[in-house]
């Protein structure tokens, strides 16, 4: 008897839950009148009906579920969105970024889905704003221009970026690549042919990283080698640095660090070694290739990356200071660290190219040589008589949180550091 009562009770509760869920479904979040969804919105937003003729329509819109994304009453977000841009798309598209993805498209990370997608309708699949690579080049403009103007092109790049890259996030690969190198390349390039082996001097390059020599986006060098090629590569003399191709460890280098490079670049290294101070990475185990790539690079001087990124790899604080600074120092903005610093060695502090700060700054700021606050070796700094006044007495070249790289928030605060009688 007791069991029967309990069973009836459970069944009744179940029925009530089902009914209430069905009722909620029917009325929706905003309890719209029957037939009011979508059509009701379009009765005012009549211009919007054109969107409905597009080839690809976003599913909620196609279902007339405008309130899936918009709040018809009030919102804290533009376009009466029912949440911030970061979260609203993820309500449905929550699998776009895999957990612990190796790389994520900046736009996706920033929640800028509408930078690529039209949230309502579009002529292109995936509701993309534009088709093919044209969309990518809206942001990656420089790369787009390079791809267009390259003498030697990589055909998949010309066709579509998505042949190699995934647009949202890559689970395992950097740079949004669909697969890691060389696997990605080997999907198209067969390595067993005699021609392939011959052109790679019989080195088992299929085990290596293709982009250490080739520019996958195309280049002005044959075989889409990056624009600047290290001479031994040009001459097919891989064994100048590496073991023989048929050896047990063909990619191992014959010497470590700078000792390998010294064989050819002895003049540069000897000159560096004659200076009072070295840039220490030059003489660590990695040596020259801390900053340079040994094969080919699209950057001048075979740099691994743009100068700003190469230097910033270790000196991130310097770049962060410039970022925070209200006034930007042009050589840093331009990524030209070597305007002031010597990258290998120097006789001067901070690897400066010139012996004095005034001489360095004077390279660009020539006004100070004829008209400025007294500076120079004879003008002592009242704050510390061991120091002479120079540009850095008032400015910090990589920037401060104040304007004009000043050490203090305003001119008065700066000047009274020395001119104490004017202190308020």
């Amino acid at each position, binding site marked *: 008897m007791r069991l029967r009562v309990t069973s009836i009770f459970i069944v009744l509760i179940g029925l009530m839950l089902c009914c209430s869920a069905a009722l909620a479904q029917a009325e929706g979040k905003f309890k719209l009148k029957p037939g009011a969804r979508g059509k009701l919105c379009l009765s005012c937003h009549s211009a919007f009906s054109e969107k409905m003729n597009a080839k690809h329509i976003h599913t909620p819109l196609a279902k007339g579920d405008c309130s899936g994304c918009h709040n018809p009453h009030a919102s804290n977000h533009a376009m009466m969105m029912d949440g911030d841009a970061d979260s609203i798309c993820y309500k449905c598209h929550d699998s776009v970024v895999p957990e612990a993805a190796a790389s994520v498209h900046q736009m996706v990370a920033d929640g800028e889905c509408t930078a690529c997608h039209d949230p309502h309708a579009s002529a292109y699949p995936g509701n993309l704003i534009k088709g093919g690579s044209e969309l990518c080049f809206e942001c990656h403009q420089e790369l787009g221009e390079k791809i267009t103007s390259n003498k030697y092109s990589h055909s998949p790049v010309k066709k579509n970026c998505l042949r190699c890259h995934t647009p949202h996030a890559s689970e395992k690969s950097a740079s949004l690549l669909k697969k890691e190198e060389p696997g990605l390349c080997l999907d198209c390039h067969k390595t067993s042919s005699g021609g392939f082996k011959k052109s790679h001097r019989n080195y088992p390059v299929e085990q290596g990283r293709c982009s250490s020599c080739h520019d996958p986006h195309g280049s002005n060098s044959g075989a889409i080698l990056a624009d600047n090629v290290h001479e031994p590569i040009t001459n097919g003399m891989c064994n100048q640095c590496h073991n023989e191709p048929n050896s047990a460890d063909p990619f191992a280098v014959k010497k470590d*660090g700078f000792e390998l490079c010294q064989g050819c670049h002895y003049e540069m290294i000897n000159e560096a070694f004659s200076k009072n101070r070295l840039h*220490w990475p030059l003489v*660590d*185990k990695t040596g020259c290739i801390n900053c340079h790539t040994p094969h080919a690079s699209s950057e001048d001087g075979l740099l691994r990356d743009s100068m700003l990124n190469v230097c910033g790899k270790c000196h991130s*604080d310097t770049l962060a200071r410039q970022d925070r600074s209200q006034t930007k120092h042009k050589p840093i903005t331009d990524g030209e660290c070597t305007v002031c610093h010597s990258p290998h060695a120097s006789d001067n502090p901070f690897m400066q190219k010139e012996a004095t700060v005034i001489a360095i700054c004077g390279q660009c700021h020539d006004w100070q040589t004829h008209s400025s606050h007294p500076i120079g070796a004879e003008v002592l700094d009242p*704050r*510390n008589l061991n*120091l002479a006044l120079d540009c850095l007495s008032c400015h910090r070249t990589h920037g401060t949180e104040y304007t004009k790289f000043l050490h203090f928030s305003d001119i008065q605060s700066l000047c009274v550091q020395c001119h104490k009688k004017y202190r308020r």
Partner: protein
Amino acid sequence: MHKSFARMIVVLLLGILFVSPAVATKIKHRGSVYVDKAGSSLNRPEGVACGEKYFIVADTGNNQMVRYSMTDQSLTPEGTFPLPKISPMITQISTKGDIYILDGKTRTIVKMGQSGQIIGKVEPKGIPGSKTYMSRSFKLDKKGNLYLLDIFSERVLVLDAAEKYVRHVPFPEGSSSFSDLAISDQGSIYILDGVAGAIYVSNPGADSFELLSSNLKEHMNFPTNLAIDSNGTLYLSDQYGSGLALVGRDGSFQGRKFGMGWEEGQLYYPAQLCINKQDVLFIADKNNSRVQVFSILNE
């Protein structure tokens, strides 16, 4: 009831006593040196080594070493030793009183007698593996052993007082931007990766390094030099941040001291640090062209 409550309070107080830091470090300015024996200004000194009653400054910009005596009341220049062919960067005093100097130009360690005469250079004997070594920094311990931070072969080389190879400890994998090391009285070796903002330790007898402290970049900009006090606290000179950072022997960040500036008690691109047995702290205040001396008060 009252008894158990009182017991709880006692346990709580004892717990607080054991859990809370045993010491709070205060640093008091004692004085600064600005000139050599001839009264000439120091010029961007990068190195300082300390004894109990004297200290040595690597006056880098003037290519010279300067010796100072130290009493409770005064810091007095005693001797200036010009080294026109050397760019002195880091310095140490041996148990015998000889002065060891890392020469930036040749990247060798030059040895100088107490009266300023050059008596040779460090020539390690019996190093295994690569014969090439590149000392980015070095330290001497109280037994006269020499520890070379060999960035070329990625190891700390330990040599005895006769410069014979004793052992080496390889750098930890995946980290290579080491700029300085410190040796505790117990024989632990600490190495500083200024780029990553990490400190590694190799405890006495260990043949490898383990991570002691990471994420230090949250608290400092570009630490380059390392020293250790009698309490085991590590002192880092934050060159680019123009300050000092303290790290406990458990690797915990203990705070920053000083700020950037020109007045005494302020720093401007500090370089080498030295702490003597009395916990007197010496800082080569490079861009202020002086050495500042402080007392560490562990309270």
